[in-house]
């Protein structure tokens, strides 16, 4: 294990804005992937050992540095305006869940599922870079479609990427679906 390669990897991860893949790191370091992988493990150990302000982050196939949990992360979060990791309302989380599972998806469809206009929450998610535009749909008015970003995967700790999302419950899995139906039908019977 060359000390140089550990330092090189640290420098590459520091200067890169977006997380890098192993082949990207290896190409920039001019080293083979196995050596880079070993250097990364060593870097991770050293960062922890010396209580550094940054830690190695592995989200899916991508590698990056992020503020160490605790005080460094708290302070770093205060530095960013409209930080993606802060202030996500339940409404924003709902819209984000719809995009995460049904992407690419347009605003009208998000609004249809949530039953309320979702323009403001979608704009907020875009600003936080949790979602991004992904072309236009075929529907009425060719709505802009959205998909989640790697920022979303990193913030939510989805280390396997979107594969890490749990299976969306199907109608058969509903726990209280039957009860809901019963209540609605009771109301219908009263009206009918």
């Amino acid at each position, binding site marked *: 294990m060359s000390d140089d390669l550990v330092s090189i990897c640290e420098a*590459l991860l*520091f*200067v*890169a*804005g*977006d*997380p*890098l893949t192993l082949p*990207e790191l290896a190409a*920039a370091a001019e080293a083979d992937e196995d050596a880079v992988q070993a250097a990364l493990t060593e870097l991770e150990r050293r960062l922890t050992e010396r209580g550094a302000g940054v830690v190695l*982050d592995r989200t899916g196939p991508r590698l*990056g*540095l*992020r*503020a160490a*949990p605790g005080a*460094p*992360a*708290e302070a*770093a*979060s205060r530095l*960013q305006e409209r*930080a993606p*990791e802060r202030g*996500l309302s*339940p409404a924003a*989380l*709902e819209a*984000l*869940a*719809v995009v*995460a*599972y049904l992407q690419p998806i347009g605003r009208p469809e998000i609004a249809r*599922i*949530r*039953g309320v206009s979702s323009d403001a929450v979608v704009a907020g998610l875009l600003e936080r*870079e949790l979602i991004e535009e992904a072309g236009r749909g075929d529907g009425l008015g060719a709505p802009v479609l959205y998909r989640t970003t790697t*920022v979303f995967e*990193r*913030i*939510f*700790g989805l280390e396997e990427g979107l594969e890490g*999302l*749990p299976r*969306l*419950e*199907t*109608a058969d899995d*509903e726990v*209280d*679906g039957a009860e*809901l*139906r019963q209540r*609605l*039908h009771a*109301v*219908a*019977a009263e*009206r*009918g």
Partner: protein
Amino acid sequence: MNGSVLELDLDFDAFSGPFDLLLALVLREELELVEVPIVDVVLAYLVQLEGAEEIDLESLSEFLVLVAALCELKSRLLVDADAEDEEELDAESAAEELALRLAEYQRFKRAAEWLAGQRAAAGLRVFRRGPAPYAPPRPAAPLVEEQPGRLAEAILHLLEPPQRVDTTTIRRRAVAMRPFVERFRMLVRGRGGFVFDDEVAGLERGAQAAAFVALLELIKRGEARASQAELFAPIRVGRDEKTMRISAQVLDATEAVA
């Protein structure tokens, strides 16, 4: 033709009587317009027109206005009826529809809760934000080789002012129909028939239209008949054998009398 379209006699399943009675019943809502086949009204009128010696333009436009109004009323009724059907979803189906929507929403609400939990478990994750300085640059789209000369050539045409149209005198374009009637009659009688398209090939549009009207006139008079193998195929014009037979009979009869 009868004095007015209002006296037009109609006879179909839902109604039998003159047109004005039909209108009165529809307006008083004693007859469902939905049950009145407007196309039959139009057909009855066309039959009446055919038998007329002269076309009374006033009466014709009156009919057009009335039928247009009926069409509009009927289409509104039909469209509104559908809209009502949609609104009047019975309470059971409405409850089912709502239950399905709520169930769908519930699934995403739970997914959102899972995300919130995941975020809490992941802890505060703060990353460097900004463009990646070492991201591979996007390859530039290859440009098509352009020839500026050709562009200039194309634009030059646009710069030429269009020819002024002289509107000081407008000549009336008249196309005579009679020569066509005479020529077609001669062809039918002499050669037994002809191909309409060959006769009008090369003529300008107005003349072609006149020729066609001339042909229709001959057919109406029973002097010719036309056939076409399929849509847009050449129109073949021949002698109307039936009329010819009748003419021959009349001739025979006349000769016999003579």
